[in-house]
């Protein structure tokens, strides 16, 4: 029982392919990180998984059924999507935003019931923002806003969450807040797919990692097997050093890129003042 993408192909204009036969699986109870450079197709892949775009070839299966066969409302009750950028237009209150997550359960001519409100409040509590219910969500910080949107996805009753770069544009404290929340959500049985630019974060939070480059999967697997410098260089074209302290904690640190720059650094101020004289 999982959300599976099989050999997806997608192109925007019919010529350049953005996804070239990508397969991956989101399993309930796990955090799956999707890494890759800009333009590798991460967001497109996310959107295909969420039924927001239709692949030219390949298919997406939700617990064994193809997405196109599942009515849109049913899909929305199973898959939650949190975009990277959310531009507020109206200053809705936080609770009102989360309530919108109940849309898949409401008919076109009805609005939320007290039960829906209760569920929305529950979702807000789950992300730790129940005190914010009455505040306009335009007054929130970037991290809090991200949490509200996650709460909205929870209010959908979704079993699978697709988060597009949830840690982007956030300061370290907020990043931790969001990622720790994700860990908590997954502990309750949801499957979460996260796109990220941060291999280091993946190291700490992922149970499964997919590396994407130019629309193709370079490698997939558990973090210790995948998040190694050789694979990262293949995917990103960047050298990483894998550091470990004795207690088993590991971190990935990018090394300097070009060789030339290290030599330039070697010229000291003293040499410059000598030449002046």
């Amino acid at each position, binding site marked *: 029982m999982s959300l599976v993408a099989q050999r997806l192909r997608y192109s925007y204009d019919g010529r350049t392919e953005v996804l070239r036969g990508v397969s991956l699986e989101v399993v309930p109870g796990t955090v799956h990180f999707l890494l890759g450079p800009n333009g590798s197709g991460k967001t497109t892949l996310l*959107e295909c998984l*969420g*039924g*927001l775009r239709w692949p030219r070839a390949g298919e997406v299966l939700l617990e064994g059924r193809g997405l196109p066969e599942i009515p*849109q*409302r*049913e*899909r*929305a*009750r199973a*898959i*939650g*999507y949190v*975009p990277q950028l*959310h*531009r*507020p*237009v*109206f*200053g*809705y*209150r936080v609770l*009102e935003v989360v309530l*919108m*997550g109940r*849309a*898949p359960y*409401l008919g*076109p*001519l*009805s*609005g*939320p019931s007290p039960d829906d409100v209760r569920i929305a409040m529950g979702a807000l509590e789950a992300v730790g923002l129940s005190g914010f219910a009455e505040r306009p969500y*335009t007054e929130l910080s970037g991290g809090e806003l991200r949490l509200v949107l996650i709460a909205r996805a929870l209010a*959908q009753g979704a079993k699978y969450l697709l988060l597009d770069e949830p840690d982007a544009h956030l300061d370290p404290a907020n990043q931790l807040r969001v990622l720790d929340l994700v860990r908590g959500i997954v502990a309750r049985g949801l499957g979460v797919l996260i796109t990220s630019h941060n291999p280091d974060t993946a190291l700490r939070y992922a149970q499964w990692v997919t590396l994407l480059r130019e629309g193709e999967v370079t490698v997939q697997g558990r973090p210790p097997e995948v998040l190694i410098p050789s694979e990262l260089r293949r995917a990103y074209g960047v050298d990483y050093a894998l550091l470990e302290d004795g207690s088993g904690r590991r971190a990935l640190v990018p090394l300097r890129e070009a060789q030339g720059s290290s030599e330039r650094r070697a010229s000291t101020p003293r040499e410059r003042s000598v030449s002046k004289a």
Partner: protein
Amino acid sequence: MRSRISIALFLLPIGLLFLYLTVGRYKVGFQGVVGALVGSHDLPPTARAVVLKVRLPRGLEAAVVGADLALAGALFQGMFRNPLVDSRILGVSAGAAFGAALAILWGLPWYLVDAVAFAFGLGAVWLVLFLSRRFGGSILVLVISGVLVGSLFSALLGLIKYVADPLGVLPAITYWLLGGLSGARWSDMALLLPLSLLGGGVLFLSRWRVNLLSLDEREALSLGVNVRRCRAGYVLLGTLLVAAAVSKAGIIGWVGLITPHAARALVGPDHARVIPASAALGASFLLLLDAIARGSMRTEIPLGVLTGIIGVPVFLLLFMRLLQGRGGWG
């Protein structure tokens, strides 16, 4: 607090309607109005006729037209995610104006003029939807199509005005276009009321969903909303309301633009509340303006002119509040 505002908003148009019945060139007075309404025969028959056959139908028409335009404005502002949207954005008014001018040019009787205006208003939006579907159907395309179609019908209207006989036909067209309810009578309600109730009723029931349309399209899709179909449906509802209002009252702008802002300032941006509040405020606004239009001078002040004169400064005020970040916008 919230429910107190709701009650006040509900009572406002009713109270204003009663006040509306008491003002006018023909002096009737408070007791006269009450007497006429309860059917007392102590009143001279002319006064009774003025209240029941002249002012009451016209007041109801003003309230309904105001509510229709405000509802459409609130709906379109939410759907197009734009605070500067008026009920005229999709070209309905321009289409209806052209239809009316055409009907007058052809010499049709007055009741058919309104029907033709309504038909062309719907036709204009059909054209807009058709164009936008062909070119992608995004909000931008929808708005541009609306502007194009509106401009097309305005240009055609100009053509009609040019060839119209300046003695008999052109004044009739100008009179219609200026916007006004001076010929209001009970038979007008036959078309206006059912259409407004239909459009307004469906919109009222589905008002919460407008919140979803105010989201980015991908987010709305992920929440299970069939965005294209929803948008088309709401466009149709809004068009019904605007076309009904315009075909009866001519071109009246600004009501659809200003009222939703005022509503948002009072009840917050949740469309489940903005939409009914807009209806109440729109009805009240137009009742007030029409009382001025028909009662202040010997001649009628065109309603479209009054909404503009009062609308522009009010809009400027609201716009400044917008820029300062207040008023329910992001």
